[in-house]
């Protein structure tokens, strides 16, 4: 497939820590196609940020890349020198952070933080840089950009700061935009606006997007494909419809069941237990310990990916031909029915 722009293959990353190696990412593979939005969904600590930090080449010094390749434009990004990475970071792949409150330098004017990125494209005059930065601020919906150019981050609200971060990420016109939980730190109303903005710039600039979140509700409207990640592995991958209407992995099902929505009156089904300690990753299916219907084999052998359709795969023993049929919980069935109806 030639329209794959970025391909992560069997990526495994560990961190040295005082208590041993933390196996943060354990063999993640996914492709990003040109013009598409791929979401990575999983709860806190599942290794989402580590995956994208590997792509950006900004892992901390205690990180060890155990295996894998990240192919972009015929290069393996994991093999690039720091110097070669300067042509990739910002210029080809932009990143939007989880927490816009701390992502901006508190003591530097907003405008300067944007022009600093613009100037990396090549020498431009001060006036031109200002002009371009103001246009950029306008295009991400910052009102009164001329005046705000000279302000400091503390004079901006969280939503406005996230717009600044987006402007900085777009300054060098990258092909790929990675959004690491860009709305988690924001109010719900602001969240919706930022999501709209991301959708808008994607269409305008023909971007390919990797969208990280722990909230399935957020990705429903924005993603073409969803990878569900648990304990450092992708456990299910499929199109947005397949994941929402036909979830197969018990973890995906649990995520869907625990998603708040306006129409259910029952109590939210929270996922019991806590994620595993990644210094001692579990042997079989990592989710088995929290899955009330886990099979014996789930604790012993790691499930391979079972194919459901050309685009839909899930790593769970329940898809094995010999596995006993386990009914989906009624609440979840109803909810999926309702989503289907609303969707149609």
């Amino acid at each position, binding site marked *: 497939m030639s329209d794959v722009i970025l391909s992560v293959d069997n990526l495994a990353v560990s961190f040295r820590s005082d208590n041993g190696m933390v196996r943060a990412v354990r063999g993640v593979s996914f492709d990003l196609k040109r013009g598409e939005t791929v979401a990575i969904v999983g709860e806190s600590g599942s290794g989402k940020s580590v995956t994208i930090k590997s792509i*950006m080449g900004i892992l901390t010094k205690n990180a060890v890349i155990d295996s894998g390749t990240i192919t972009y434009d015929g290069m393996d990004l994991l093999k690039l020198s720091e110097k070669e990475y300067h042509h990739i970071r910002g210029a080809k792949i932009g990143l939007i952070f989880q927490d816009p409150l701390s992502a901006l330098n508190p*003591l530097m004017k907003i405008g300067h933080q944007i022009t600093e990125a613009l100037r990396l494209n090549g020498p431009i005059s001060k006036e031109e840089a200002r002009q371009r930065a103001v246009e950029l601020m306008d295009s991400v919906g910052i009102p009164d950009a001329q005046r705000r150019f000279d302000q400091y981050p503390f*004079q901006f609200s969280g939503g406005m700061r996230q717009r600044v971060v987006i402007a900085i990420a777009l300054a060098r016109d990258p092909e790929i935009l990675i959004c690491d939980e860009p709305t988690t730190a924001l109010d719900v109303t602001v969240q919706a606006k930022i999501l709209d903005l991301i959708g808008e710039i994607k269409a305008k600039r023909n971007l390919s997007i990797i969208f990280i979140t722990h909230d399935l509700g957020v990705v429903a409207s924005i993603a073409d494909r969803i990878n569900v990640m648990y304990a450092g592995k992708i456990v299910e991958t499929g199109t947005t419809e397949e994941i929402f209407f036909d979830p197969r992995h018990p973890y995906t099902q649990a995520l869907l069941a625990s998603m708040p929505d306006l129409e259910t009156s029952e109590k939210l089904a929270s996922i019991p237990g806590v994620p595993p300690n990644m210094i001692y990753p579990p042997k079989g299916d990592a989710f088995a310990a929290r899955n009330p219907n886990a099979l014996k084999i789930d604790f012993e052998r790691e499930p391979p990916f079972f194919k459901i359709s050309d685009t839909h795969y899930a790593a769970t023993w329940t898809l094995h031909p010999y596995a006993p049929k386990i009914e989906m919980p009624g609440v979840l069935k109803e909810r999926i029915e309702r989503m289907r109806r609303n969707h149609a």
Partner: protein
Amino acid sequence: MQYFYFWRNIIVDGDWGVSVKIEPSVPVFQVLRNRIPVTMALNIASLLVSIPLGIITGTLAALKKSKLPDHVLSLMVVLFISVPSFVFASLLQYFAAGQFGWFPVVFQNTTDMAVKISSMVLPVLALALHPIASICRYLRGELIETLSSEFMLLARTKGLSHYKAIVCHAFRNSMVPMANVVIPMFTHIMGGSLVVEKIFSIPGVGGIMTNAVSVNDHSLTMAALIFYSAISLFTILLVDISYGIIDPRVRLGGKKNG
């Protein structure tokens, strides 16, 4: 009643009285007048020497965190901060001046500038060790914190080189609160200078004050103390003002979003 007239004279006439023991009948201000420039020169020189050295060592320690240079510097910081300056003054005097003869043993008040300056090297150094160590320790902590902050990550994902991100973001941000560390240090240097001036026989305010105290020359002691108090108050004022000038969050705080 005597005491009342004493204060009245000070306040109304600016009459600080006369020295009674050290230079009998000379007005105390005249006794101090020639000494203030010497003390100020010594202390300001120490401060000026310590700033670049503190910055260089602090940056080195932060960038080489948990490596050999950091450990060596940390050890020196502890030593320089905990041992008072007069101990270093005596040691330097004994070894660098006495044993090796690199510098004059005591202050040389001659018109030969080279000799005069070389006789100031050891006292300046003795006084600078503590401030060098505090700047180093402060900058190391501050830099390490900024280096691991999110905005450093953003600076790098923009595409800035590691070096540029450190200089334009981490270093710049760590330098901002620097004035608030350096200015109060001046008072500390002045304190050390009380004794160091005496060790090197420097004709400054510190030396004369220690003499005045030991021979009960009260009016001279008072005048010297007033001088020191004025300097400390002035530095505190400077710190408060500099906060406002340097940090935009304080400077613009009043008119948020305005």
